[in-house]
């Protein structure tokens, strides 16, 4: 063997040897060997174990393709199936599930994670560790707290609206963009909120309405990882306005013994704390909204600028009221700063934070609040005046 040849051979071997080193995710698994999990539910059994419920999609039933139905029709397949499993830990519950299902569970496209009320009241921080650690878990799934029902029941509903309940629930939460009455909390948001100093986590709530529908409305307020109470839909919207999570919302106002629906199209909210001598003195919420007139069920004309002014004032008052209720409840009842006033202090008045940070929630609940809402009506729609006969 000549020298040149040897060199070439050595080079080839070197190249081949390096290849296995580079391979990152080496587990070759096929799509048809996976159970695609659409929704997850976490509950607690009476004897303190974790009860995990998963909703698995049956692709063949959702999208009947000729290749899948090649073996001849048969009875109609359900689009999803739901299985539950108990375990001391989440991972044990997941592995335990393999005794019931045939293929590996695949979590990357899971849409929702529903936590039961009882589990939430005991604390969620420990349980979420698995979801933080596992590389297969999607950080984008929505987290919700089930109010009054178990996650199992929610995942087992057979909705007419979407064949996959997980997708259906996800869709209703996504709609919050245009209503602002539920907080959309993705797993990554929740983890951030838990880790964030001076802010308590809050998760949207979900309940069952009737036989086949769910409702996502309102908010569950947490304190130190434990659920402490609920906010209703108006209060939730107050929170959303304050923390700048409203993209669009409908606010009803009463003017001159008539109703008007204003469509908020742009909203900008900030929370801050006034500090004097390194002591927090006042919580400040500033919201600036722009709205269009969506409906105007009031007798009279909408031409004059004064009428618009009245509407603007009514809108500002309504929003101020909602924010006020929310902050009041969080201060008095739950003693939990879900707005992130504390993180404002932590970031901009660190000296002050060092003083009060340890018992911030208590300090927070004592502070006076200033809510400053600036509302502007931009457009009144296609018509100026309601179509009524001239008086």
């Amino acid at each position, binding site marked *: 063997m*000549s020298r*040149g*040849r040897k060199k*070439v051979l050595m*080079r*080839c071997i070197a190249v081949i040897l390096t*290849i296995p080193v*580079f*391979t*990152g*995710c080496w587990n*070759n*698994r*096929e*799509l*048809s060997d*996976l159970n*695609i999990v659409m929704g997850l539910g976490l509950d607690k059994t009476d004897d303190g174990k974790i009860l995990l419920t998963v909703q698995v*999609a049956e*692709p*063949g039933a*959702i*999208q*009947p*393709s*000729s*290749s*899948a139905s*090649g*073996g001849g029709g048969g009875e109609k397949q359900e689009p999803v199936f739901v299985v539950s499993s108990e375990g001391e830990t989440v991972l044990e519950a997941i592995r335990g599930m393999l005794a019931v299902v045939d293929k590996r569970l*695949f979590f*990357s*496209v899971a*849409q929702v994670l529903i936590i039961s009320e009882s589990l939430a009241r005991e604390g969620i921080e420990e349980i979420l560790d698995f979801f933080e650690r596992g590389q*297969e878990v*999607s950080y984008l799934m929505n987290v919700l707290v089930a109010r009054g029902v178990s996650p199992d029941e929610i995942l087992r509903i057979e909705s007419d609206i979407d064949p996959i309940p997980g997708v259906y629930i996800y869709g209703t939460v996504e709609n919050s963009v245009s209503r602002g009455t539920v907080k959309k909390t993705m797993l990554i948001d929740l983890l951030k909120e838990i880790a964030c100093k001076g802010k308590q986590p809050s998760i949207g709530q979900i309940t069952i309405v009737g036989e086949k529908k769910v409702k996502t409305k309102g908010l569950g307020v947490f304190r130190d990882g434990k659920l402490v109470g609920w906010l209703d839909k108006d209060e939730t919207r107050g929170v959303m306005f304050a923390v700048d999570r409203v993209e669009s919302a409908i606010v009803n106002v009463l003017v001159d013994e008539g109703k008007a629906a204003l469509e908020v199209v742009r909203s900008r909210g900030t929370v801050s704390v006034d500090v004097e001598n390194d002591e927090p003195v006042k919580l400040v919420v500033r919201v600036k909204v722009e709205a269009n007139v969506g409906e105007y069920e009031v007798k009279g004309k909408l031409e004059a600028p004064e009428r618009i002014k009245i509407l603007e004032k009514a809108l500002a008052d309504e929003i101020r009221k909602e924010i006020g209720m929310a902050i009041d409840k969080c201060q008095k009842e739950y003693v939990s700063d879900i707005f992130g006033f504390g993180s404002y202090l932590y970031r901009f008045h660190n000296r002050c934070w060092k003083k009060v940070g340890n018992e911030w929630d208590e300090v927070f609940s004592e502070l006076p609040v200033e809510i400053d809402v600036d509302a502007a009506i931009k457009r009144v729609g296609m018509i100026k005046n309601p179509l009524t006969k001239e008086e």
Partner: protein
Amino acid sequence: MFDWIKERHRAGKQKSENTGTGKVLYGPIPKSIRAVRERLDEIFSCCSDVIIREIACGEKKKIIVVYIDGFIDKRLLNQDVIHPVINFLTNVESKDDVSIYDWLKECVVINSDLKDANDMGQAVHGIVSGEAAIFIDGEDRALVAGVKTPEGRQVEEPDTETSIRGSREGFVENLVTNMVLIRKRIKNPELKMEMMQLGERTKTDICICYIKGIANEQILEEVRKRLREIKTDAILDTGIIEQYICDNRLSLFPTVGNSEKCDKLAGKLLEGRVAIICDGTPYVLTVPYLFIESIQTTDDYFDHAFFATFMRILRLIALMISNLLPSIYVALVVFHQTVIPFKLMITFAASQQGIPFPPFVEVLLMIIAFEFLREAGVRMPKPIGEALSIVGAIVLGEASVSAGIASNLMVIVTAITAVCSFIVPPFIRVTMLLRFVFLAAANFMGFFGIILVGITVYIHLCRLRSFGVPYMAPFAPLTVPDLKDSIIMVPVWAMITRPKILRQQENVRGIKGSKRQREENRK
């Protein structure tokens, strides 16, 4: 990596050189006509197509006319050559001051194409290449008259390269016709055609065609050198020449271009490339051939530049797809389910359900089935082709899906891949093989494997040269002026300079160029 193969090859080449050329020497032409006759009978023994005709002129003089039956125009031969010669020799007394041979050559034979053969070898070569040789008693020279019949196919539109606009003329098998076709488009004495012969036995006529003053002399010299170095006894097609003269003989990628279209070739010549025409094949080679030429078509230049640019982007995407689509699909389904949007994932999973094979095997089966069909379509007599396409469409498309052998998504993937692979014709064969390499890499290492193979291919492409010109130019090395005719194409009126990377002698096209030349002439 393949150095040792090259070495072995080089050694083999040297050996063949040492064994000698194998040329047969025919010797001089005997003076006596009888001896000539004997010699010819010996050379052309068992050549039933060679006609050796002895004609007596007057009492003493005899001539022998030799030609190949059917190769020449007999009427022309009789009219312009034999008849005047016989007349002359019968009626005219021999003159002492001028030899009969010279008389014949200069005054009698009125054929325009007339040559001397000073030895038997030249005469024999003339005969076998379609000329008529006339041996005259008492002369040690022979007249060789070119009276070839215009044989072969008519000029017609090439099947392989059809275009929407532009000339429908394609090259034919006849070298002379091909040369005329080029000359018709470039009416300029600067268009040079150098003839040479290759192949010890076939004696194939080869023509190096270029435009003097544009083509780079170095490249031209390299072409001549490489052609001269070809040591083989048979050149049947330019494809054989291509394999001998390309830079990297082991590379899958073509570094020598070929075309059947006259207008395309004229364009290439005007860019400063060198063409090699070979007798007996309609495919003309052009060198240097760069990667970017694969996505250029003649239509581009005849249409609006915006459409051309769009089409080029499309072709490049098609090239990518035909290489990568099956492997990307396999990588997604086998390794990277996480990156599939979930609605798409449901679709993927639904189509995968109930398929007994892993996706890799499935893709492999489908692609190989397609290659079978394609090859059968090429080899098969045309009337049966229709039956084939029906069988192919039903078996591949419909039956395999409903039988649960392949998923319908896989059929779509294969179909798109197949369609895309025909969009860039020069790379059909390359992608056919590369596809399998990518596929294997995707099945073992996912996207990582695809990227690994992709980088390897790209490095290879960047290292490749075509007659000294970097293959990936104008991108690697970046040649900014040449980007005007790459993926983006500027309108023809704005394409003032020729591709710079070819280092032409005269880089500027059109009016500017001639103006500069005029100034130079004035000085």
